[in-house]
């Protein structure tokens, strides 16, 4: 126990300043009203769905919870059920074998159902493209609010994407 505490004290707090929203990632015009944005800004819940990534994007989503990015510290939490989620974070192209599961997850998510597509694959199909087994971009299957390019996008870029989706800047009142 002593060693464990010593290690915690020695390492100290590593969390860095959060990045800003980036409007260039926005696909759909902001569709949340100020009240919702204010609430989400305090406690946002995210459900991650992987309908076909190479698993590279997952590594960076995991990194969001390391002490440097400390996403939970911003009040943003990953949840185990779509029913508790405000946002779906979707990685990879959509494999046809996962299309139905993705649609079902979306259907189970309560409004406002923000969708953020992660990575070049989520944006466009990436290196896999569209084929007999693959639908390509997430937007081919679901309405997407924000896309975050990169292969994989850095944790900072993913945070920017999430924050863009819930930022009010271009927010038109719903």
């Amino acid at each position, binding site marked *: 126990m002593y060693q464990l505490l010593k290690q915690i004290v020695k390492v100290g707090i590593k969390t860095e300043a959060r990045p800003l929203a980036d409007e260039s990632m926005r696909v759909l015009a902001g569709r949340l009203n100020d009240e919702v944005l204010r609430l989400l800004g305090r406690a946002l819940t995210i459900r991650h769905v992987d309908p076909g990534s190479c698993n590279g994007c997952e590594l960076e989503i995991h*990194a969001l919870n390391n002490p440097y990015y400390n996403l939970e510290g911003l009040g943003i939490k990953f949840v*185990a059920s779509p029913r508790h989620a405000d946002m779906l974070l979707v990685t990879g192209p959509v494999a046809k074998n996962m299309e139905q599961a993705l649609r079902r997850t979306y259907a189970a998510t309560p409004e406002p159902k923000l969708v953020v597509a992660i990575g070049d694959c989520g944006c466009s199909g990436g290196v896999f493209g569209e084929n007999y087994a693959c639908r390509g971009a997430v937007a081919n299957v679901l309405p997407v609010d924000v896309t975050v390019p990169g292969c994989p996008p850095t944790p900072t870029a993913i945070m920017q994407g999430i924050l863009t989706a819930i930022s009010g800047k271009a927010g038109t009142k719903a």
Partner: protein
Amino acid sequence: MEISAQPVPGAVPAWRKQVDAERWRTLAEQLLSAGSRLGALWASDERDRGGGYLLRALYVIFEGLLIAELRVDPALATYPDLSDLFACAGRMQRAAFDLCGMRAVSISGEIPDVRPWLRHGAWPADAHPLHREHALSQPHPQTEERYAFVPVEGEGVHEIAVGPVHAGIIEPGHFRFSVVGERVLRLEQRLGYKHKGIEKRFESLSLAEGIRLAGRVSGDSTVAYAWAYAMALEGMAGTTPPARALYLRALFLERERIANHLGDLGSLGNDGGLAFGLAQFSRLKEDMLRTNAALFGHRYLMDRVVPGGVAADIGDSESAAILAEGERLRTELRTLRAIYYNHAGLQDRCITCGRLTPRTAATLGVVGLVARASGHAIDLRVHPGHPPYGELQPEIASHRNGDVAARIVVRFEEAFESLKLQRRILHRLPTGPIAASVCTPDEAAFGIGWIEGWRGEVFVALEAGPNGAIRRCHPHDPSWQNWPALEHAIIGNIVPDFPLVNKSFSLSYAGQDL
């Protein structure tokens, strides 16, 4: 080695051998009794060249690799089953039917398992995407197909089905547990959800372009796949990468191993009730990724291995920075290892949990770190080895217990060993160019790549088409062998321990779904 086998040029010792159906089977029996393993099995369509279908089985023999090649008459489209000899053949044979339309038939004339594996209804049973006439983007109506899970009956037995979408940030797959109370009687996996046509997609690319896709078969092993692909292509083209490039590839591969082991050690601590571990290891991993980004231009080193060499070089100051980082990491790892090994709660969760005995591991042909934690000292870097590992003299980490605790020990030991190799690489880094040019291989040239990635051995088999096109590319992930072993390791454990056991295997869905 059989006299009639023909050598495959390249960095690893490999031979190929044409066999008939009878020899396909007797060779397998003979290799099994000699202690060889089945590394991979895949099918191709050669009808356009008058060769019918072509099935290949890649064996890991003492001397290296032996690839048995069987021509299959398309009118019959059957071949002798190997799954009774090599259990891991079962799923690969089912995948070969889904993609290329030929069936394994047992000695008694039965089809051992008719259920599809990669085909879930995205294409009909009579369409086979790897047939030459099947277009890459051929449209098919989506059908919904029921999958026949094996029923388990008995008093008090009930089923728990999870997935394909899991709670947590993980890849999709389906797990069906048959349990009594909390105890697992049986686990059946269903995978293939992420199948996205990778092998067919390769055939629309040139040999030069293919490496980018190879590096994205399983993103967490991008260096291993890219190197395996490059090795196959260089073998076909008769190119030997410069010594400096090979050392830098080894540096990338060992850094990939360390980063993944750090990530898993953190998650294992967390799943074992020590959240402290996740915070500590994820910080150490992030430090490494940032160094990768600063020095090599990519956090996971994607696209840094290129045909003929590498795409990133370092100077003396970068080398010194990596060495200093390595020293810091070694000190921190020692501290964390002591905390993990002395933490009664964590040890209590991990010792005897999810045990894979050496015997079961051998029967299932398990590979990589899971094999090493179950008493099998197999590691390609050590034997038969390939440049530059002969000069680096890596040592194998292994353990006999085969439980979660053993898989944690092996990860710690391998991380220390990789740090040692990193020091050797940087101290001995040869001078000179970092890439050689790769000429276009002749049509029908065949190459093989074999790399010991952090998870286990990765293969890439590559064939050239005309004018530098890919005719066929088959990437093989070690998860093919290790997924079935997880079904065994969980038996008798309680359901709440599944995440911990699953994490200790840390297998790729993307890599096996293709």
